[in-house]
């Protein structure tokens, strides 16, 4: 009694293995008798095992066919299409003779064939590769690739076979020499291997594998015959259709069962609703099935209640969308307003106050107009800004040329209406720069030995300093700073003063000739001029003769 109760506290448990041992013994006995029965009847495979074997065989065949197709394509691409059946036959017979599976032989042969381009050479090399593989323990595919490389002069891979050749010898060795060496070292290795027990087992395995592939081919052919498919693609399609059919029938059954259940559990008046609910649920569930693909996007007929519900949901969604759009618009407007206010606030703080303060002060008419124009621009009052700009420009150039020039540069909304003045002033300034200044008489300048520095004059510009010397010039004395007039230089901007009033200061340093020397020089020149010969003469007063 107590042992049947689930809800119990079991105290002091004891391991009683008797029952387990008994059960184990019984299972083993049953297994044994089953095996003996199988042996008696000659049946060693259950139905499941048969199906599994069939499946495996079919898979092996499919894989084998894939590899065979790869080789056939390679052969075809090499222009040896006609040799393809012979190659297949050769691979099969080589597989049986060497105990190497065709799935190993095919890639090896393909590697050799694509390199050598000759079926005979490839067959010979493959036979050799089998021996080398058996003798060296290197995989056949690797050996074949090494041989293929050696055929085109890449002998690096052959080092692992220990042929007794130095690196230099290997590099310079011809394929024939290498082949001879390999033959000498590994010839008959595979035959010797096949003589061993392991070799025989391998051969048996290969034969079994081949048999499995053949059975696989038969299984697929059988399936094709049963389904009436002409090729594997059609077979797959028919299997899919058959599966879909079976799945659809099962789904129908499930749906029917659920509807029945809904009817049983429903009260009067709820049948229709509940059945429809089951149908909708089942339709949605079955939409994942392959056979329902054609129904994708199809809507189920809906009940008036469902339609009303859908309409209500759509209306609610529309309302929500409208509300959202309204909120978004409001937010955007608010954002714009805030931005504008922020900007206006900043501008007001930084610029507008200054302008207004400037207007309160004493300004000339022209300056006042300029400030007013700038203020108008800040407040986006285009009309006023344009009007004031015109007045300013007309005041500067009554002919209207300046204003026309302003109009030609276009954008009336430019932030600085006086920006064009810069260009105009620069043009004007360059004209001033090109003006020639009167040069000073050179007679006095030659007598001056002075280091002259000029401030405010661009380097290399031709100009002559015009300066006048005062009466107090003494030898060794420095020249005072001299105002030499107006020299327009550099870029002038409006408001920095009239360029014509620019002062340039020239400082001349050094000693000047004494008055006596000057008198002597002048008198000597006068004497020279009085001589008829025109030669340079020297008048020596003390000696009393002329040269």
């Amino acid at each position, binding site marked *: *009694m*107590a*042992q049947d*109760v689930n*809800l*119990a*506290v079991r105290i*002091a448990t*004891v391991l009683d293995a008797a029952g387990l041992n008994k059960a184990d013994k019984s299972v083993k006995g049953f297994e044994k008798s089953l095996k003996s029965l199988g042996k008696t009847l000659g049946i060693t495979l259950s139905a499941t095992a048969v199906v599994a074997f069939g499946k495996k065989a079919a898979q092996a065949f499919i894989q084998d066919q894939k590899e065979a197709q790869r080789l056939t394509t390679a052969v075809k691409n090499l222009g040896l299409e006609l040799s393809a059946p012979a190659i297949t036959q050769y691979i099969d017979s080589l597989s049986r003779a060497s105990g190497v599976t065709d799935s190993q032989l095919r890639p090896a042969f393909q590697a050799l064939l694509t390199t050598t381009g000759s079926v005979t050479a490839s067959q010979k090399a493959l036979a050799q590769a089998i021996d080398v593989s058996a003798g060296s323990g290197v995989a056949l595919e690797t050996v074949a690739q090494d041989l293929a490389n050696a055929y085109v002069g890449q002998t690096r891979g052959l080092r692992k076979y220990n042929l007794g050749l130095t690196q230099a010898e290997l590099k310079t060795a011809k394929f024939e020499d290498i082949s001879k060496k390999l033959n000498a070292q590994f010839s008959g290795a595979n035959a010797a291997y096949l003589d061993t027990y392991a070799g025989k087992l391998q051969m048996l395995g290969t034969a079994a594998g081949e048999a499995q592939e053949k059975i696989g081919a038969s299984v697929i052919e059988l399936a094709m015959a049963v389904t009436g498919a002409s090729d594997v693609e059609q077979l797959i399609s028919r299997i899919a259709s058959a599966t879909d059919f079976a799945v659809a029938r099962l789904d129908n059954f499930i749906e029917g069962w659920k509807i029945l259940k809904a009817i049983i559990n429903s009260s009067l008046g709820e049948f229709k609703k509940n059945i429809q609910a089951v149908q909708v649920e089942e339709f949605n569930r079955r939409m994942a099935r392959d056979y329902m693909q054609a129904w994708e996007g199809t809507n189920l007929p809906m009940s008036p209640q469902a339609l009303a519900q859908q309409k209500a949901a759509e209306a609610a969604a529309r309302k929500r969308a409208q509300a959202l759009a309204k909120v978004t618009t409001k937010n955007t407007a608010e954002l714009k307003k805030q931005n504008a206010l922020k900007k206006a606030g900043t501008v007001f703080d930084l610029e507008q106050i200054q302008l207004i303060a400037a207007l309160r002060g004493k300004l000339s008419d022209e300056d006042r107009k300029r400030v007013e124009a700038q203020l108008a621009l800040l407040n986006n009052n285009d009309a006023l800004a344009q009007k004031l700009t015109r007045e300013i420009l007309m005041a500067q150039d009554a002919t209207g040329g300046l204003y026309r020039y302003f109009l030609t540069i276009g954008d009336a909304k430019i932030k600085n209406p006086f920006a064009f003045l810069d260009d105009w002033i620069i043009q004007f300034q360059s004209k001033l720069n090109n003006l020639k200044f009167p040069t000073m008489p050179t007679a006095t300048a030659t007598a001056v030995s002075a280091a002259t520095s000029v401030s405010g004059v661009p380097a290399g510009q031709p100009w002559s300093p015009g300066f006048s010397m005062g009466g107090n010039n003494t030898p060794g004395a420095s020249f005072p700073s001299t105002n030499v007039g107006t020299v327009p230089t550099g870029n002038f901007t409006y408001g920095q003063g009239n360029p014509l009033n620019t002062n340039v200061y020239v400082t001349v340093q050094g000693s000047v000739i004494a008055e006596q020397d000057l008198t002597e020089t002048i008198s000597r020149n006068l004497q020279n001029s009085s001589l008829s010969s025109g030669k340079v003469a020297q008048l020596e007063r003390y000696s009393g003769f002329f040269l």
Partner: protein
Amino acid sequence: MPVEVTGAIELRKALKKYAPDLAKESQKEIATALKPIVRDARGFLPSNSEVPSGWLKENQKGKWQNRGYDQATATKGISYSTAAGKANRQGFRSVATIYNKSAAGAIYETAGRKSGNVGQFTPRLNGQLRGQGQKMTGRAIFRAWAQDQGKTTAAVIKAIETINDKVATLVKSGVIK
């Protein structure tokens, strides 16, 4: 945590065969150890007025008649057994068992131990879920077992050992051959 005792079943079989009186004595000793727990567990069962009225047996119809609560039935359902239990899937058998076999008692014992003290029914049971792990938690026998703190197990083992000693003495003295 179950306590494993080796040889208890064999001892019992031997007692039954060679010393039936001693076998009965051993059962009595084990029963004495188990009774306090059963008494406590029964004490944890609520009276009929304490359970939700809708659960009372007298208010039930159909298949729920056997599941409806009745304190007397639930009390009777809590008991003990000193017979060796059936081996479970792992091959273990118990020397003694305290069980709660009535449907209503089982409901009271286990309600809410998986989903918690939620809903309309479980919170109104008012008992305390006690014990270790989900399977050893409950309001009646498991609560009593948790309160016992292993004293009963020790008592049962001591009873078995006492009988074992007695058997050894009898064998030595040549009463049992």
